[in-house]
């Protein structure tokens, strides 16, 4: 229990300090921080609609946060969640909007195909790492840029609504059968079953690392690849598989954006925002624990949704939220700084 409190203290301190620094910036800009933060928080939670909006925004971040978590367990840094998200989303849109056969074009199959697309895109980086020793940070970043170009290609040519001469770079809406049912239709927000699937995914990932051999092997490879190899674990296979699972989760996140209805069931410019990169911050803030990831994703989503209301009601640009997020990650990277401070205090006592 004491350890759990200690585990929690760093993220809590990081969030608190980052908010204080944010308040100082707001003050410097001549606004009242209490006032700005009032809009920030009330904008995120003060009505069922606001809550639906926050949870809707959190959904893809839970998926990508879990994606990063899985990779981190094997000491792999999957910066490519954005690309995997795009690939998952494109796969979902390609089938959901274009396949006429409902045996294939239904929400279950479409989700599976999107997951596979994410899996393949990520395990390619895993393959390069395992077989050729190419650092996954660089390959996943490069694969992100390739995926972004591919996204533009798809939206402008093969998947474009109305063909290549169509009016705007977006796909047609996916068919009714491929859509994820809404959770709170009364709020007019597209919060959908995808949020529940994200929570289930978090439980499965928790189970994976708590109870299964595969989870154990992934962690073992993360701790010490050489010892794992000697213990008979196929390290190269685990590296590829871990990246694949990571990409699978990101791919599901991409599918949720399309099938969940947040952009009227079409894939358009900016549909995937930066959720893949948000996953990094979410996993770090969540201390790489599935429950932590869920909480962190909801917190970041609340900041973002509230940030828009703050920008609307005050002179503070919503980008201050990105600055606050960056400071949170910086502080978490500097974990030892807190430990040093806490340690010294204890000594003084």
């Amino acid at each position, binding site marked *: 229990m004491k350890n759990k409190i200690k585990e929690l203290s760093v993220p809590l301190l990081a969030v608190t300090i980052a908010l204080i620094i944010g308040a100082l910036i707001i003050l410097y*800009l001549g606004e009242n921080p209490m006032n700005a933060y009032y809009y920030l928080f009330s904008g995120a939670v003060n009505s069922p609609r606001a809550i639906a909006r926050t949870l809707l925004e959190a959904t893809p971040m839970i998926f990508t946060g879990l994606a990063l978590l899985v990779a981190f367990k094997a000491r792999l*840094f999957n*910066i490519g969640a954005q690309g995997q998200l795009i690939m998952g989303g494109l796969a979902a849109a390609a089938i959901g909007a274009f396949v006429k056969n409902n045996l294939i074009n239904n929400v279950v199959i479409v989700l599976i195909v999107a997951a596979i697309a994410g899996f393949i895109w990520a395990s390619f980086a895993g393959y*390069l790492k395992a077989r*050729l*020793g*190419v*650092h996954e*940070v*660089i*390959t996943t*970043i*490069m*694969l992100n*840029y*390739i995926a972004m*170009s*591919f996204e*533009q*290609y798809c939206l*402008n*040519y093969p998947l474009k609504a109305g063909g290549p001469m169509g009016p705007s770079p977006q796909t047609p809406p996916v068919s009714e059968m491929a859509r994820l049912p809404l959770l709170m239709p009364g709020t007019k927000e597209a919060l959908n079953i995808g949020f529940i699937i994200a929570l289930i995914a978090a439980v499965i990932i928790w189970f994976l690392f708590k109870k299964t051999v595969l989870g154990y092997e992934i962690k073992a490879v993360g701790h010490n690849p050489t010892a794992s190899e000697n213990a008979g674990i196929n390290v190269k296979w685990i590296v590829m598989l871990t990246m694949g699972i990571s990409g699978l989760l990101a791919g599901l996140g991409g599918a949720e954006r399309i099938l969940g209805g947040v952009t009227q069931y079409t894939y358009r410019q900016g549909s995937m925002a930066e959720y893949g*990169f948000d996953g*990094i*911050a979410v996993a*770090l803030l969540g201390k790489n624990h599935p429950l932590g990831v869920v909480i962190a994703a909801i917190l970041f989503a609340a900041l973002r949704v509230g940030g828009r209301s703050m920008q609307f009601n005050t002179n503070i*640009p919503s*980008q*201050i*939220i*990105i*600055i606050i*997020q*960056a*400071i949170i*990650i*910086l502080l*978490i*990277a*500097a*974990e*030892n*700084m807190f430990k*040093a401070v806490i340690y010294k205090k204890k000594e003084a006592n």
Partner: protein
Amino acid sequence: MSIIISLILATIRQAAPILITAIGGMFSEVTGVVNIGLEGMMLMGAFTAAVGSYYTGNPYLGILSGMLAGGLMALIHGVLSIKYKGDQTVSGVAINLFASGFTVFMLRVLFNQAGNTPAVPKAPAIAGMSVIVILIYILAIASHFFLYRTVTGLRMRTVGEHPLAADTVGINVYKIRYFGVIMSGMLAGLGGAYLSLGALSQFTKDMSAGRGFIALAALVFGKWTPKGVIFASLLFGFADALQTLMQQYVRIIPPQFIQMFPYILTIGALAGVIGKAVAPAASGKAYDKGE
């Protein structure tokens, strides 16, 4: 013929920001500190250079402020990774995130704009080449002599390969590492300054566009040596220049596929060469000198 000459000139220009950022990354990694934050340092450099040039009316002061901003970001990275032994990759990611948020935030605060600064005084050009490009190539060549012909260069390499040994012979490991990291930020800032004051005469949102990461790849591809980095950067510059040229002349391939070319080349280059590339032994590991 004129196409070939313009391709060569474009290669030299496009390679410049990647080159100097990669040389910066080399100074950091050679002392043992991994710098994923180059992209963010470059972006901060581009933004601050434009702001400096805007307010002083002097592009040289702009370049200087860009380098200082990059250096300041690097100092934060240094304190986290050297003093507090934080995770260097995580810290670098935070720097990148901070830079992308901060620059747009400040665009709104200073200029009430979401996407770009107003036009600012640009660095002059000599014979069609921006002075920043010329400066970048001079610094890149000088870095070779600095790293292999000076005492500080030798010390930097020693600290990166075997910090304990360096410590034993009286080299201040922390000081050398701070020096390397701050230099990396200043050079990345210079690369950024080229983007806003050399290539354009304004800052635009996220204008570094992944060049900091390509610089990281060039660093690995160039095997952490100045000569190798110059070669690798020219290759990426060429891919970029070719890509731009092909978009003008080749209509059959969709432009989106041509845009992928530099990134595919990066992966291919790394996959092909990596077996022979060895990072500085202590790269990425914090050094604890004990008390």
